């Protein structure tokens, strides 16, 4: 079963995302983590259920279709998570099957710039702009007229 991961410490933001998924009719399993540290743990545990090798491309079950990543989080922020992720696994193989989406309420231009340095990040969404329609292109869904 395909999955979507949400890494955000704010419960309401996670809830709002999940409501958008429901609106789009997505049937994915939603994995939730409140910080980068927990997200790393979560991926590691998931992939270890079947294999010790997190990089193995055929272990599709441990790879979500998309990761929605917040920037401002305690312990390990979104960028630290991206850094850690790209150090731990073969990121190019990973993003071939997984969209990495940054979703933030930050207005700091430095954050936008920093996000660009991770070229495997596919979308940068501001929480204020969040609704079901903005998520459509991520899942390659046709526009709902």
């Amino acid at each position, binding site marked *: 079963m395909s999955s979507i991961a949400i890494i955000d410490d704010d419960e309401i933001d996670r809830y709002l995302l999940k409501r958008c998924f429901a609106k789009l009719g997505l049937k994915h399993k939603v994995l939730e983590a409140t910080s980068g540290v927990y997200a790393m743990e979560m991926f590691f545990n998931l992939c270890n259920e079947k294999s010790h090798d997190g990089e193995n491309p055929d272990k599709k079950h441990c790879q979500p279709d998309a990761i929605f990543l917040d920037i*401002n989080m305690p312990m390990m922020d979104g960028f630290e998570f991206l850094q850690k992720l790209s150090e731990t696994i073969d990121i190019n193989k990973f993003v071939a099957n997984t969209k990495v989406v940054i979703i933030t309420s930050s207005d700091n231009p430095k954050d936008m710039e920093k996000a660009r340095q991770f070229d495997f990040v596919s979308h940068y969404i501001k929480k204020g702009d969040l609704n079901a329609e903005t998520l459509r292109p991520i899942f390659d869904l046709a526009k709902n007229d």
Partner: protein
Amino acid sequence: MGDIEKRIAFSFGALNLAFLAMAIITLIEINAVTASSRKIQYELQPSIQANLQLTNAINSSISGLQSWVLTQKPRFIRKRAAFISIIDKSLKQLINQSQNWQDPLLLEELQRLEPKLALFKEQQNVIENMVKEGQQELAIETLVDVHLPLSYEIVASLRKISDPHSWEIARTFQQEEQNESFLKNVILLFLFLSIAGGISLAILLNRAVLAPLKNTIQLADRIGKGDYSSTSTIYSGEEKLDKVLQIMLEQLEQKQQLNIAQQSELKKINLSLKYSNEELSQFAYRTSHDLKAPLVAVRGLAEIIKEDLNDGIIDEAKHNATRISRQVKKLESLVSDILELTKADQETQSLDDVDVTELTNDIIIRLNTVYFDKQISINTSIPNNFRMLTSRVRLNQILENLISNAIKYRDKEKKLPSVSIRFIQQNGGYIIEVEDNGVGIPEAYQEQVFGMFQRFHPDNAAGSGLGLYIVKKHVNKLGGEISFISSEAGTTFRIEIQD
């Protein structure tokens, strides 16, 4: 007149005097030599010459007379007459020269000589006539007995006159030689003196002018390179200049030190400005983010509530309304934290005589109403009638933040969450400790504890992340230090403040 000028003037003066003395002495010596030469040339030599001519003429006339007596040839008469005229001429010369003679004995001798010569000529005439008259034998007799002794007498007399002159010439020559040798020595001496004078003048100039000048140039060079230390002595060869240079150097050094002090002060200010600038921009971004994020969430929730109400999903709508109220509460607490932060940043807070027990109890009562539904054991250890002269606002903020943190991050797995507040009086100051048995601060994040917007418990995300940042500001403004020890068993914050 300065030191240098005195020395230079003195040395030039000395050298000039030496050359002047040399010139005068040389002139005097040359004059002496010239004077004696002149005396020989114009007085002694002619006298001796006239004397010699006279003697020769006397001898020649006698020889002429003798030849006449013996041969009676008339040419001997002519010869004798010629010599007689030479005798007259020479005598005249001798008398002429005698004007220069200083010795009265010589003049007397000459006076005595004149009548003898007259007699000598008379006798020759008589003897000549005797031969003419045929009295040849008488003539020979007169010649030998009378005339020759007279001539000897005259010649001896002439010798008496000429000898002192010869001696004087000899003496003069000797004198001249001495003078010349003296002059040579004097010139050699002055040559040596002028060389020595030149060398010593050069040395003196070097010492008086060049060495100080070099020294001064080196000093100027050093000053130019910004080295104002007066380690080596200043020696410009001029006392006044030395003093001025010393004062200049001292002033430069003072100014440099002042400059360095000011620069380091400026650097400090700059650094602190830079720091507070960075802090401020970080604060602005974080504040705007943390203020905006709940608002955005509230808007999203409101949209969903509208949808749910349309769809008749009332329970979900109620649930989301609760979420909205929670978000708004979070906003309220953030706004009040920001306000507290601005208070913490204010430099001056009035000093109050604080009853510590009363203050602590007030805080505990306030917090108990917030966490009325939680089982928490709070105990205090405060010395009797403990009062502190401090800022009530700051102390209240410090305690309230630390105690509410201790409650907020309690460990739900432990039997009874507990908080201990201790005040300890210590020599010249006091220690405040707030200890809990909560979840502790993860070791990896302990360094960031007092940073702005730091939160380490994602599942316990009620805080603004400003609490400990505010506490540290207050503690520092009170002149204290804050530290903590944390483990899974709990956390103890310790504040030390000196009176």
